[in-house]
């Protein structure tokens, strides 16, 4: 499903609800607390992995491969190379999330700004930009990401001392570039909808400059939608990295991401399915938590889903 939720997520703001009185602050549902708790846990583990008493994720520590969970003090067992699954899951999460957050940041800064401008300035530049986003979206995102990774990784037969970007940066760049037209288009749709509002005309009537209108009047209204898309984007990028890992285009061994772990685990499926299940469950919970919080923001700010 890699990017399918993103198309669903293209958003346009709806008319704000006609609430006369102060709407009472709704209490966060239990699901939100669970989602936040899970994400806090994952982020905490990712940030402080080095300080935690964990085995080196890339070194064999177990007495045998595919050691069952709980044995020899390894809570989650060991993988096919006798490495500590717990520590690989934590370090893998760090890489997966790092790549996803990095990519979405790139997509947001560039795509968001381009979308904002092309949605506000409806002249030929804005229109050409919009057309360009649409055209680039015709290239399947995963194919583009795969090509970018391959291009940036360069020649495998190249001299070993030649300059190369660190692989994690390559992945961030590849997924980031892919997300630019998508995020630009969504931001553009939102900007256009808000730019039609009368308060924008009112600001112009006050003599406000375009910059002021764009950043003071429109941007604050587009932000909730952007926050929603950002959360969703991180979820999508985590999944996309998994796809790349299965195609063999993620980090180089022995580094772990959840995708790489799933890919490694599939060969041991018959004897030790837990090796595959652990990263799948981690991915699932993280993606679900991000989706849940994204939905919550969307509902709270009445960001309406409509694709175009």
């Amino acid at each position, binding site marked *: 499903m890699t990017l399918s939720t993103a198309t669903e997520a293209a958003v346009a703001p709806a008319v704000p609800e006609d609430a*006369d*009185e102060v*709407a*009472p602050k*709704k209490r966060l549902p239990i699901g939100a607390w669970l989602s936040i708790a899970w994400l806090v846990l994952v982020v905490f583990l990712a940030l402080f992995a080095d300080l935690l008493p964990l085995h080196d994720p890339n070194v064999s520590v177990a007495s045998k491969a595919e050691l069952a969970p709980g044995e020899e003090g390894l809570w989650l067992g060991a993988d096919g190379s006798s490495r500590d699954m717990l520590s690989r899951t934590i370090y893998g999460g760090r890489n997966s999330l790092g790549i996803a957050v990095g990519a979405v940041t790139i997509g947001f800064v560039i795509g968001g700004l381009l979308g904002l401008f092309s949605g506000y300035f409806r002249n030929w530049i804005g229109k050409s930009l919009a057309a360009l986003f649409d055209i680039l979206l015709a290239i399947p995102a995963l194919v583009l990401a795969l090509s970018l990774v391959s291009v940036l990784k360069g020649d495998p037969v190249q001299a070993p001392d030649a300059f190369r970007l660190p692989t994690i940066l390559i992945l961030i760049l590849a997924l980031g570039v892919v997300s630019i037209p998508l995020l630009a288009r969504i931001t553009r749709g939102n900007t256009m909808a808000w730019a039609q509002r009368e308060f924008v005309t009112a600001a112009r009537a006050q003599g406000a400059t375009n910059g002021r209108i764009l950043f003071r009047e429109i941007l604050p209204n587009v932000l909730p939608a952007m926050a929603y898309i950002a959360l969703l984007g991180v979820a999508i990028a985590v999944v996309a990295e998994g796809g790349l890992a299965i195609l063999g285009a993620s980090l180089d061994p022995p580094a772990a991401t959840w995708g790489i772990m799933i890919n490694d685990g599939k060969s041991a499926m018959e004897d030790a399915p837990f090796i595959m299940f652990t990263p799948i469950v981690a991915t699932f919970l993280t993606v679900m938590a991000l989706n849940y919080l994204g939905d919550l923001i969307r509902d709270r700010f009445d960001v309406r889903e409509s694709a175009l």
Partner: protein
Amino acid sequence: MSENQTDHANQPVLEVRDLVTQFSSERGTVNAVRGVSFDLYRGRTLGVVGESGSGKSVLSRSVMGLMPGNATRTGSVRFEGSEVLNASPKVMRSYWGQKMSMVFQDPMTALNPVLRIERQITESLHEHIDMSKAQAKDTALALLTSVGIPEPARRMRQYPHEMSGGMRQRIMIAIALACGPRMLFADEPTTALDVTVQAQILDLLQSMQRDREMSMILVTHDLGVVAGRADDIAVMYAGRIVEKAPAERLFAGMRHPYTQALMRSIPKLEMPSHTRLDAIAGRPPDLVNLPEGCSFAPRCPNAQEKCLVDDPALTADDDHADHVFACHFPVNEVVVAAPGIRVDGQPPRIAHDPSLGGSA
């Protein structure tokens, strides 16, 4: 009109008793209709007037039973003698369209944009009356002609967006009348239309109602719309009928301060330019947190302590049994819809909005 009401029928077409409609919302229970009772006889029109949030639209929908899932209704609604409040959906469907129909406010949104006019008219014919396709089509053509649509055969093949607002409203009336209902609910049927078209549509509704001897509830925010076209007028405020009387009786002597204030706040054509209007201060109450006592009391110039604690019941005027109002201190003066109620010369005074507290 009012004096010959008993000639039409001895039993009312519609008897509404203590109708209460509530909605559950995130903010709490919305008290949209709070104990409304009235009778409606055959061939007569009841005008229901109120501002937004007065419950006037909810009232007509509650009577008809077209309610969303979060609504609860109590009380009694008898249509031609049988209780229809909270009847099963199946039973209600046999009433809807066939015995009672509704004309909605905005013909743009109330007609299905993706279906041809023909389909939208014949749908209820097929549903309620056993008709062949050709019969249904002929009936539809006749209906369109009767509501004043030129070239009905061509219009039948069109979609709503291909027509003007007035034309769409005529089509909606044709749909509502298709199965010959005995009761028509017109919910702000002309609010979305221009004045010149409004007059045409109101005339059409009135002539249809007379020809077919239908009973009609005409809901509107415009006292002018009901003044000449309703037999009886009910004024609603915060979910209750606060005053009800035959049209001429009401305009001859409004007893409730709200009715009077509403009348006074409307700019009238006869008034000279720059006549200062008598605005009602504040705004209608929140239907979730209604004030204790009379709900108009916070805005009422005549309000006294009793009004803040004791909600007045509808009582009849001493001289006119058909004129009822809910007020502890009704007004007696005769309000005339004439120029110069309060004219120029007053010092400019800034209308303060008391609902926000503080002082000006």
